[in-house]
């Protein structure tokens, strides 16, 4: 009682221990501060460049969420000026810091798709993702899975993996086909209704997310599970207004007992006279379809143009394109080229889009030897 604790402790205090303690303190403080400060230093520049102050802003950019107490005093949105003359679209998208919008109509979520997306080597800070999902049971399940992965990447993932912004839309119309199974989906009678829905979904996604800053739009189907990591740079490098990669599917060949690949997407083609004549004899609402024996069009299909994998740079002009991995200059869409949900010159969806782009003066091209791979069910 008579001897206070202080003197006892001080007596035992060793300068070395004190030093160690001090170092430890500094160490802890450093780690407390460093992760946030390092991220803020990098994201700070990003914030200045393209984050919006208000939630009423182009969804292609993130916005700073107001704190709950500040929400009340958040004034009217500012007057924002966008100069679209300064939006460059060049063959060197990374060098010019061009913003890319990756759009995916999604009915089912494939983990491989997301993993492949994360592998893309284009700077993720310049990529905005857009998804549209139907409001069906299947769509809800896919949305849940998608959101889970997004959460993982955007909140917990490393900074360089995080995308600039992500938009999830839910469709406002009922899918006319209840089943998304491959056999059902590809039946000829179901094609028109299915592709009408697809067109509407694609258009809804496109016109609400395009925004004023996008330079390129990459259409990537949700069942594309393997692409070269440099997909965006590569396709943009050809500086074509519309360019499509060749979509193949890997499968297990029972005969050779090994993995093999086969062409999958038949929507990219060069037109033929037979198809023209066939179209001329049709009613105004009928559409020409590709890949069905009942309707022989004799079009030149890009799927079968693939020759030598080493000749990656072969570029062919096309009259119809598929939407599996399709890179489009934002100009083309801004001029009005969309995916017609009706028979447009007897074409629909992506094929109709190619026709419309041509009517607007933009020629679509294809890369027969540049392959992306479709999921195999």
């Amino acid at each position, binding site marked *: 009682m008579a001897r*206070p604790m*202080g003197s006892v402790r*001080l007596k035992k205090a060793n300068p070395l221990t004190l030093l160690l303690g001090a170092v430890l303190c500094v160490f802890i*403080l450093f780690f407390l*501060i460093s992760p*946030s*400060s390092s991220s*803020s230093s990098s994201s*700070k520049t990003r*914030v200045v460049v393209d984050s919006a102050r*208000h*939630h*009423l*802003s*182009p*969804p292609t950019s*993130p*916005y*700073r*969420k107001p*704190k709950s107490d500040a929400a009340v005093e958040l*004034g*009217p*949105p*500012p*007057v*924002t*000026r*966008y100069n*679209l*003359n300064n939006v460059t679209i060049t063959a060197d998208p990374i060098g010019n810091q061009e913003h890319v919008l990756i759009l995916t109509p999604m009915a089912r979520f494939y983990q491989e798709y997301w993993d492949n997306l994360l592998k893309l080597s284009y700077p993720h800070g310049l990529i905005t993702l857009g998804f549209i999902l139907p*409001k069906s049971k299947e769509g809800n399940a896919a949305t849940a899975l998608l*959101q889970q992965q997004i959460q993982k990447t*955007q909140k917990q993932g490393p900074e360089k993996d*995080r995308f600039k*912004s*992500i*938009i*999830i*839309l*839910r*469709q*406002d119309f009922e899918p006319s086909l209840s089943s998304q199974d491959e056999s059902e989906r590809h039946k000829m009678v179901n094609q028109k209704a299915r592709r009408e829905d697809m067109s*509407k979904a694609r*258009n*809804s996604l*496109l*016109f*609400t997310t395009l*925004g*004023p800053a996008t330079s390129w739009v990459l259409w990537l189907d949700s069942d594309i599970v393997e692409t070269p990591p440099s997909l965006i740079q590569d396709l943009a490098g050809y500086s074509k207004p519309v360019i499509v990669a060749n979509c193949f599917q890997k499968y297990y060949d029972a005969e050779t007992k090994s993995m093999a690949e086969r062409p999958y997407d038949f929507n990219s083609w060069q037109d033929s006279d037979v198809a023209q004549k066939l179209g001329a004899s049709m009613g105004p609402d009928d559409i020409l379809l590709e890949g069905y024996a009942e309707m022989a069009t004799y079009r030149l299909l890009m799927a079968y143009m693939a020759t030598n994998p080493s000749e990656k740079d072969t570029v062919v002009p096309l009259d119809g394109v598929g939407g599996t991995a399709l890179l489009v200059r934002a100009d083309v*869409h*801004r*001029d*009005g080229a*969309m*995916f017609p*949900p009706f028979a447009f010159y007897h074409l629909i969806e992506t094929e109709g889009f190619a026709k419309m782009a041509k*009517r*607007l003066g933009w020629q679509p091209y294809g890369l027969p030897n540049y392959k992306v791979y479709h999921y195999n069910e």
Partner: protein
Amino acid sequence: MMPRHQASGFSNGYPREKTFDLSPHSFQPRTSIAAQRQRKRLFIRLGIVFFVVILITLWVWPKSAFASVLSLGLLGASSELELETVRYYDLTNVQGTARGWEREERILLCVPLRDAEPHLSMFFSHLRNFTYPHHLIDLAFLVSDSKDRTLEVLSDNLEQIQADADPKQPYGEVSIIEKDFGQEVNQDVESRHGFAAQASRRKLMAKARNWLLSAALRPYHSWVYWRDVDVETAPFTILEDLMRHNKDVISSKSNNSADVWRPLPDWLGGEQPYDLNSWQESETALALADTLDEDAVIVEGYAEYATWRPHLAYLRDPYGDPDMEMEIDGVGGVSILAKAKVFRTGVHFPAFSFQKHAETEGFGKMAKRMKYSVVGLPHYVIWHLYEPSVDDIKHMEEMEQERIAREKEEEEKKAKAAKLKEEFGDGADTWEQDKQELKELKDKAAEEEKRRVKEEKAKVAQLKQNTNKEKPATKDEKATTNQGKPKAKQEKSQAKQEESEVDDEKPATNKGKSKAKQEESEADVEKPRANREKPKASRQKPKPKKEKLAGAEAEDDNVVAGDSEKKRLAE
């Protein structure tokens, strides 16, 4: 153990009273030696210095991460941590309904601009008067290839409106989009509406519209409203009025297009339909379309393509029901309200020849193709600014010359008369005197007669008063279109009409404005009723103006009159 040193205790058997007392009372040795004390002091000093340094850093960099750690997140850089990158929208929530203002549906107002500086003040006076909740309206402007100060004036005006003290004034998202298309086509009326220039001009206009829409449309929009900047008079409730049609008549998919007239000088018959792009398809036109080249564009209102289509513009009846709808195939771009859904699913302004049409007409065609209902309101009138065409200007010049010639003639006549007078002297004086006398006599007789008539009239009026009480004025019956309207409203409109007739000088829109304000301040329950009434009032407005224009004798005055009207509107 017994307590030794208690303040409350007894040290000598007596209670101590109010003496200062320190406990313990006994001497205790210092617990620390001098060196320790020194070290302690040093620590304290160091601590103080450290504290001061932190305070200074907090003061200098109040938002550093350091601060947020030290204050356990109460201070500092939390805004960056709350950067929101993921957005989720359900498009089923933005379908657009007839009573959008109740469901807080957002409207995107799109205005393409080009060398439009002189019209902006008028446009902003319209903007301030919209009765649809402003915070639900997002504005998007496309400024293209402008050589005047359109951009500066526009952004100044917008900044002003967003900073307005009245919380009801600021709009939602406001974006100004700049894009030059390198148009060589001149914007004056002759080159704008000349036949040869039409196709390429319309295609460029279509492109501009598409660029604007694709940059400004967001997943939260339920409606899109296209408005030309040079609309002179339009009801403030136009958004609600057009929106309402969704529920009343058309199912869930609709386009509404108000037709457009413009007030004109008297010699052109008072008024002339401006927007000929709203029409119903005709057999002739369809047959014509089949004969044309794939890239040809049919444009209305030119003799080169006689389409024989019924036009919205020619169907106007000043007393027609403003709610009347008419199915149309081609749409005019002056004032279009469409559900955002229409644009989302891909309908746009074709910048190519879509079924032989481009821009807004092609838009109508495409919407029809996608099975949306396209409806025009032939009796719902908004007024476009009058701009004289080259023919009109020629006509004006001729008339001006005629006037000058006439004046000259008159002057010559006068001079002649004066000369005659001079030459023949004042022989007329005696005649004048006689005339005066005769006149006086006549006047007396007339006065007598008048008095008699007056007395009779008073008698008749007394009789009439009893029968006349219930009967409203016949004029009103004609003016009100809906028979079932309450009587109070009828009287109101009558009052307004009379008012506007009495003082033509007072700008009609100002009147409407003050009225709108007044009604706004009233209870909200009143609002729908007020909304119904206002367009009616403004529809009557053009009437006095027309008369005024007709009354104006000098033809070139009309341009000036238009200008002053504009100024007044701006006020």
